[in-house]
């Protein structure tokens, strides 16, 4: 049975929500002794708490490479879009100029023929 198939207990749901809150709280610039003590008390209160916090921490660590990859992908996509847009604009200009030149030369030819 894979982990995604099993029922998640209420304790686990609560632990997961609290773990994300604790992770965010511990990212504050100042970590007061009160917060530290409350965090440690919560962590040791239930095995599900420790497990959930470990999961959250692991995700937080891997968010570094994942976030960089996402940003790089966005940058690449933006570059491609910009190149495509520029190419499209160039095409419009070339076609426009070309059409103008040829229509004018055509007119001239018509005039000389007349």
């Amino acid at each position: 049975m894979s982990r995604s198939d099993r029922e998640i207990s209420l304790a686990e749901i609560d632990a997961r929500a609290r773990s994300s809150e604790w992770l965010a709280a511990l990212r504050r610039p100042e970590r007061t002794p009160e917060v530290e003590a409350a965090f440690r008390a919560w962590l040791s209160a239930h095995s599900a708490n420790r497990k959930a916090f470990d999961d959250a921490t692991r995700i937080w660590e891997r968010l570094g490479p994942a976030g960089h990859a996402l940003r790089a992908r966005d940058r690449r996509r933006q570059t491609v879009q910009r190149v495509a847009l520029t190419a499209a604009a160039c095409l419009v200009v070339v076609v426009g100029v070309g059409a103008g030149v040829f229509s004018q030369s055509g007119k001239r030819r018509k005039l000389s023929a007349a």
Partner: protein
Amino acid sequence: MPRRGRIGEDGPGAGADLAARGLAEAPASAPVYTPRQQTPVRRGAIRTLAQITQRLRTVLRRKGRSREDAEDLVQDALLKYALHRGEEPVRDAEAFIARTAFNQAIDEARRARRSPFSPKPVETFDLIDPTPSPDDQAIARAGLARLEAGLAAMNAKTRDIVLAQRLDAMSYAEIAKQQGLSISAVEKRLARGILFLQDWMEGW
């Protein structure tokens, strides 16, 4: 070069044969070894074979040989001595054994210098690849791709806050200013983003 068996460890047959030739390594308390062709011994007292080999080991160790190499050299020299003695008498056992061992040591050192390869067979090396196995790498890559997809699927404002904190190391106050939110709202958003990813990564 294959590891040679130790004299005395070659089974009862070989041991008995060497013992018959008066070559088995004698314990310190054993009677003094006397070469068959009794000749004046140069450095004073006659030594037992055990004393000779012990001395030789010490000298080789002092010359920078490993304990194992020294032992091999001594055993080789003893074997050569035993073979040689069968053909013609050796006048000074200690000199013969020592000279044989030193020559062998010089030869091996010369060979080792000339060849860039270790004299040890490759099977004896501990070859440890510190990189994770291809399977682990594939799993890690898949997990990272899943996480990236989760980031992309997240609410855009929450994602900006998460990445500003994680990648740009911006403080809650800085993010709050940039996003026009209160500091506690930024912290709550960050927590919500992590919770979203924890659910997203369930089973991964």
